[in-house]
């Protein structure tokens, strides 16, 4: 085993339904959820930075709430991935950089997650845009998540390797056109896995509550634990593992279980709020 440091967590942490599911204690207010979350995990993906440009003061306050070793993966704002405006996007990058500055300063940034939309195919226009975007974001730790299978290409992977940019390995349903399940390390500094759930029926429903409603079975998590241990961890100094199947508290449950499996505590079920040793 190499000295790969794992950061496991979920995509977002502020979900009222996680109180009902038992992950957060009864009566937990949204304002206290991060305090509870950090008892179980060492990292979190910030979803809200996709909806709105991050704002430095809010980031600053968030950094103050978490322990020193805690890391954030900040999703790149939608105006840079889904709603790109030709003449404005460079300014948006600048604003994004300013917004996440407190994360960099406090060394709490795991990476910037560039989640590209399903229609972002490997066309000339999109290739050029992505290259320009990566240039503009250079100097930051970056992880790119493709949702379209046209990006499964050795040239893409070798370019990511050349730039030391992480390819996000995704676990999502086996549907035509979707990026397949891979275990690749393109950046020796960081590998990244996102678990979206395998709900093929709900995936294109247009409702997040259906799309990400999936409870990973133990054999599925065991298979991933093996892949991570043998395929990914030896290749990178650190790894980010995040569960996005937030519906009904399945994400924290599956994340804790995967942590158990990675620690070879395969037998028992992880209780809620169990401390993380990874």
């Amino acid at each position, binding site marked *: 085993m190499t000295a790969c440091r794992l950061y496991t967590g979920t995509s*977002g942490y*502020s*979900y*009222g*339904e996680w*109180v*009902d599911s038992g992950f957060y204690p009864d*009566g937990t*207010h*949204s*304002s*206290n959820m991060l305090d509870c979350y950090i008892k179980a995990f060492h990292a979190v993906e910030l*979803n*809200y930075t996709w*909806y*709105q440009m991050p704002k430095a*003061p*809010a980031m600053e*306050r*968030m950094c103050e709430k978490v322990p020193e070793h805690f890391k954030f993966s900040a999703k790149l704002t939608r105006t840079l991935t889904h709603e790109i405006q030709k003449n404005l996007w460079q300014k948006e990058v600048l604003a994004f950089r300013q917004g996440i500055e407190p994360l960099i300063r406090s060394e709490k940034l795991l990476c910037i997650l560039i989640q590209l939309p399903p229609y972002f195919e490997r066309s000339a226009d999109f290739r050029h845009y992505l290259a320009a975007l990566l240039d503009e974001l250079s100097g930051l730790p970056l992880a790119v998540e493709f949702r379209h299978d046209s990006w499964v290409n050795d040239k893409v992977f070798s370019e990511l390797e050349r730039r030391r940019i992480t390819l996000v390995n995704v676990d999502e349903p086996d549907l035509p056109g979707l990026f397949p399940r891979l275990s690749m390390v393109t950046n020796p500094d960081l590998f990244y896995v996102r678990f979206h759930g395998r709900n093929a029926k709900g995936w294109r429903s247009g*409702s*997040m*509550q259906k799309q990400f409603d999936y409870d990973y079975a133990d054999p599925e998590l065991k298979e991933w634990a093996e892949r991570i241990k043998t395929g990914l961890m030896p290749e990178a100094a650190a790894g980010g593992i995040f569960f996005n199947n937030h519906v*009904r508290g399945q994400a924290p449950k599956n994340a804790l279980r995967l942590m158990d499996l990675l620690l070879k505590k395969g037998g028992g079920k992880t209780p809620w709020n169990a401390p993380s040793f990874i």
Partner: protein
Amino acid sequence: MERAVIHLNIADFAVAVETNRSPSLRGRPLIIAPQGSPRAVVYDMSDQAYQEGIRKGMPLARARRLNRNIPVLAPGFNRYEQVMKDLLKESVAFTPLVEYGSFDGHLFLDVTSSGRLFGPSADVAFRLKKTFKSAFNLDPIWSVATSKLVAKVATRLVKPLGEYIVAPGDEEAFLATLPLHLIPGFTKADLNRLREFNLFSVSEARRLTLEQLKIPFLQKAPLIYDWIRGMDPSPVRAFSETASTLSADHEFSNDTNHAGILKKTLYLMIEQICKRLRDRNLHGGGTKLILSYSDGLQSLSTAKLSPSTSNDMVLFKKCVLLLDKAWTRRVRIRHMRLICETLCPPMVQADLFAPETRETKQAALIRAVDRIRNRFGHAAVQTGLTLTGETSSS
């Protein structure tokens, strides 16, 4: 559990609706104001007009002096109201707790309890924004916070475009650096008073204790004390078609001041409303008639209905008087709206051996007409008044 309140705000709402009707006006200075009155004031203006110095509430004559070339459109309140209703329809798909203004482009949604069905509040807000844009070509600013007050401040911050998510627990810090005029609820007099004490920002005002605030603000002090700390327990008041009103609208395809057409239209609207009343076994206890003239001015008249009624003919008799009362100008009428208020169950204790009166005969006739129309459609039988030659369309 804190509340999750979404605020959607379509900046310069009236201008947005008008430019959707006339796309050639988009991107140009534009004033919305009634034109028929010498004391008319600016109701709304485009961002470009704002840059020229035009402000809401400014006398139109003064606005014209600033720039004579800016086109002025008469407000179409009925259109704004209809658009608000369309936006409401999309919003109630996510929560029944939707509060909205009649003409102002503001909607508040309380989505605290619908997270399990529709996902995180930010996602609901984002989806609504996309729907408003694609379905109505209206691009709202949106915010998510734990109260209406904080959500409204957040949209004010990003106006005219953008979004703001205020994380639960972050309200005090979020407001701290802001100027006091951004906090809803403060009147000009309040702000002036605070200025007299050299208090300009929220953090400065927070230094005052409640007792100190009571000296200048008396009973309002506790409210102000809470506002500047981001505390606003006021609920999002659920929309319920204002449960006790029914209304009918008619926009004339050609503006008119023809009494026959107006009366015919009025009767048709009364028929519509009374049928709905009878279907719900209700009576109307009051009525309101709003006339919108072609120059954007409106006039209104109201009357109590005593006893309450759902009888077309009785209501028509009342409403003709209302029409005479409201119709005070020679300018042609563009839109007519009839509202039936104070809906209540019929409070009639029928006599066992009631003599046949004019009213009972009318009621029997109306029942018969209803039966025919239910079976063969509305056009199967019509009153003579509505058969007059002049036509108009809604």
